[in-house]
């Protein structure tokens, strides 16, 4: 930019509008007219053979560097064991193989790239040339020619005349994709009531997800958050993921007098309440518990529920409270469910009433 303006510093302050003309330029009444391509300016390499030779050496050097990079890449591949961890400042502990392979590959690639670009910029002819653009659309003659061809073709087919053929063909072409659609039917089962039910049932014991032991009321202390799953659900089962995605529970103990919601109190056992762990927004498992306020927070989209008030939504994008599971204890003193959730767990959907 400075070059451009600098070259004009010796022009008089009041630029004449260009008329009068210098040299071979014809009179130009318009001072804003396109001045045409500026004359080509030579680079040092174009006029100084030494500079050109230097550029040549630089380009060749970069290509050579690339070759060395590839050799180093192969060497690193052979030398470093895949599990070797090294400390490299400032990156910390890194895989020696990944680090060395990546950097040597980078050298091998950028060597070629930088060499080619430097070659183009310093040694290849850099004179700008102009190409004409041509009209994209056809002239009248061509348009008429194509029109006639089309009309002839259409006439020969009889497409417009034989309406029966046309209509049945349209019908056939419209219908045949249905086969492709129908064949997709077995991508999955119909929803039916699958999303309405979980594994929980009357008498099913609550199993601590961490210890795999039945939960007893005395295991649940005030201020702690415990995760539970139904008795009999094992990781090795084929449908474990689908079942845990609906049945995951979180258990907390509140002081009964802290429970504001009457139904929540009724469904609790000595202040122990069990709520679905699956957020009612889009189904993330809820995992953050604030003991003081009894709020739980979904780490995905920050929906906040008040577990002391029927898991009402306090904040965030969730649309309804977390479903509660009715619990009690059985004769062995273990916590059990008194039935399934009374409403579907997880995200809302059309069929949910």
């Amino acid at each position, binding site marked *: 930019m400075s070059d451009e303006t600098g070259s004009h510093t010796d022009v008089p302050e009041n630029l004449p509008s260009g008329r009068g003309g210098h040299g071979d330029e014809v009179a130009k009444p318009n001072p804003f007219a396109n001045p045409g391509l500026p004359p080509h300016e030579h680079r040092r390499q174009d006029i100084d053979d030494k500079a050109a030779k230097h550029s040549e050496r630089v380009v060749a050097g970069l290509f050579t560097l690339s070759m060395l990079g590839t050799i180093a890449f192969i060497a690193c591949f052979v030398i470093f064991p895949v599990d070797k961890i090294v400390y490299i400042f400032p990156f910390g502990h890194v895989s020696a193989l990944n680090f060395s392979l990546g950097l040597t590959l980078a050298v091998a690639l950028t060597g070629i790239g930088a060499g080619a670009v430097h070659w183009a910029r310093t040694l290849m002819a850099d004179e700008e040339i102009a190409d004409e653009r041509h009209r994209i659309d056809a002239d009248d003659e061509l348009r008429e020619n194509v029109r006639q061809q089309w009309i002839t073709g259409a006439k020969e087919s009889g497409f417009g005349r034989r309406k029966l053929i046309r209509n049945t063909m349209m019908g056939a072409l419209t219908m045949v994709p249905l086969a492709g659609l129908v064949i997709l039917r077995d991508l999955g089962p119909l929803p039916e009531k699958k*999303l309405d039910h979980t594994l929980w049932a009357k008498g099913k014991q609550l199993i601590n997800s961490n210890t795999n032991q039945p939960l007893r009321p005395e295991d649940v202390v005030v201020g702690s958050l415990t995760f539970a799953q139904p008795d009999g659900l094992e990781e090795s089962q084929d449908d474990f993921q689908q079942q845990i995605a609906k049945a995951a529970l979180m258990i907390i103990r509140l002081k009964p007098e802290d429970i504001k919601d009457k139904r929540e109190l009724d469904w609790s056992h000595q202040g122990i309440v069990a709520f679905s762990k699956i957020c009612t927004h889009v189904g993330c498992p809820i995992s953050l518990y604030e003991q003081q306020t009894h709020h739980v927070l979904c780490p995905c989209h920050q929906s906040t529920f008040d577990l002391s008030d029927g898991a009402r939504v306090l904040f965030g994008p969730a649309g309804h409270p977390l479903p509660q599971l009715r619990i009690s204890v059985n004769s062995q003193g273990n916590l059990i469910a008194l039935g399934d959730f009374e409403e579907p767990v997880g995200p809302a959907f059309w069929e949910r009433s």
Partner: protein
Amino acid sequence: MSTTTEAPTRRGRPTNPGERVAEWTDGRLGLYKLAKSNLRKVFPDHWSFMLGEVCLYSFVILILTGVYLTLFFHPSMNEVVYNGPYAPLDGVRMSEAYASTMHISFEVRGGLLVRQIHHWAALIFIAAMIVHMMRVFFTGAFRKPRELNWLFGWTLLFLGMFTGFTGYSLPDDLLSGTGVRFMEGAVLSTPIVGTYLSMFLFGGEFPGHDFVGRFYSVHILLLPGLMAGLLVAHLILVFFHKHTQFPGAGKTEKNVVGTPLLPIYTAKAGGFFFLVFGVIAAIAAIATINPIWTMGPYRPDQVSTGAQPDWYMGFSEGLIRVMPGWEIRAWGHTLVLGVFIPLMIFPLVMVAIAVYPFIESWVTGDKSEHHLLDRPRNRPVRTGFGVAWLTLYFVLLIGGGNDLWATHFHLSINAITWFVRVSFFVAPVITFWITKRICLGLQRRDRDKVLHGRESGIIKRLPHGEFIEVHEPLSQQQLHVLTAHAQPQPLDLGPEVDENGVERKVSPVAKVQARLSRGFYGENSQIPKPTVEEYEEITSGHGHH
């Protein structure tokens, strides 16, 4: 060169082996005719024209590294027990997809590097597409005859985001599984068919045993196949239309000025591929991306905090986070607006961007071809729209990372969410207005520069004692650049009554069009550029102060 010894049937047999290959190919593919118009094809030079190249090259890198990854990856959700070299996960149950990704990362030599190059290239690919699209948008390169290429490019971006999403979901780790769960929840919110779509997508209840295999074929075959086709069409159109260029000396609507494909562009563009690849390789060497081993395999009842999707999903993530949890329950059904509205806003905004060229051309009534690019300041309304869209994106990106903003800057998450909710409506309007004002200000400056010259910083004392700053006149080239743009007039509906005094009927559509057109080109949307007369009048006098 010519060989005269043999009796030529059509032309002499070339001695040069390269030329012989060319001859052979020409006889079968018409190589020479193809090469005639393309070998010395002129490409204009500007740094912003490289952005599209970055997209192309990162796509090529994605294909190369992606093919490598398929050699080791097992797209299966069968459960296995891990006993590989990564001790913390020893004995943990996981899907084969996750286990094979662990294998690639810890046991295949160079596997981790290729995985990281692949993921980094994906981020760069989509970033480059968006920046490239911004270049095209702000300079008006989407105008006739390039509207279709704008749509091709837009479709590439749209498919690119889905390819990215299906790709990072494949390892079946805790983070990506959470993202898939989010998608399932969003699908469920679709009125009437939501549960059916979800069941068909996952082959039953979430997560099932099918989605990795299904995403795999979509990720490695369907989407890249479509994208490769679109990409070729995109490039063919670039060649066919010839590249746009910025206004400047010697550049007109009827020519294209630059350096030829052979040798300059072959060397520069070819070299640039290696530079892009090299830089991504270096990034992959020093910066870990998606360390699935720290997250563990997916289980629907577990989650990590700070769960964030890849950056290009930040828009939809922000929408879903800040939307109030509206649910309408009636007649035994639930309309999950709190999820469905964000799910719909995303494609609607995308579609608005896709159809923008057609809207602008309809509003302004501009049906002519354009090969010279606009300087963004000369189209304040369009530039304002572009900035408004970007603002919307960044506002939602803040919303998408509201937990990180809260923890890093010690802000209340409620306050951030409310800020985003309000900004979603207000910020684009404000930035539109500000941008438009800035553009008009720059137009005024251009006008001053043309009429009074460039401020030189030289203070001169006149004989009678007055001090003036010397304004240095612009060269003809600079004058041309600052005045070359057309300043269209808003559409005119004509007089309200015809020559007989009868009220003319103007369709409401035409009225809307005329009003919008005034918005684009009315007196509040452009500063009249200096005319030759104004210029002559000022410059013919002496001493301009």
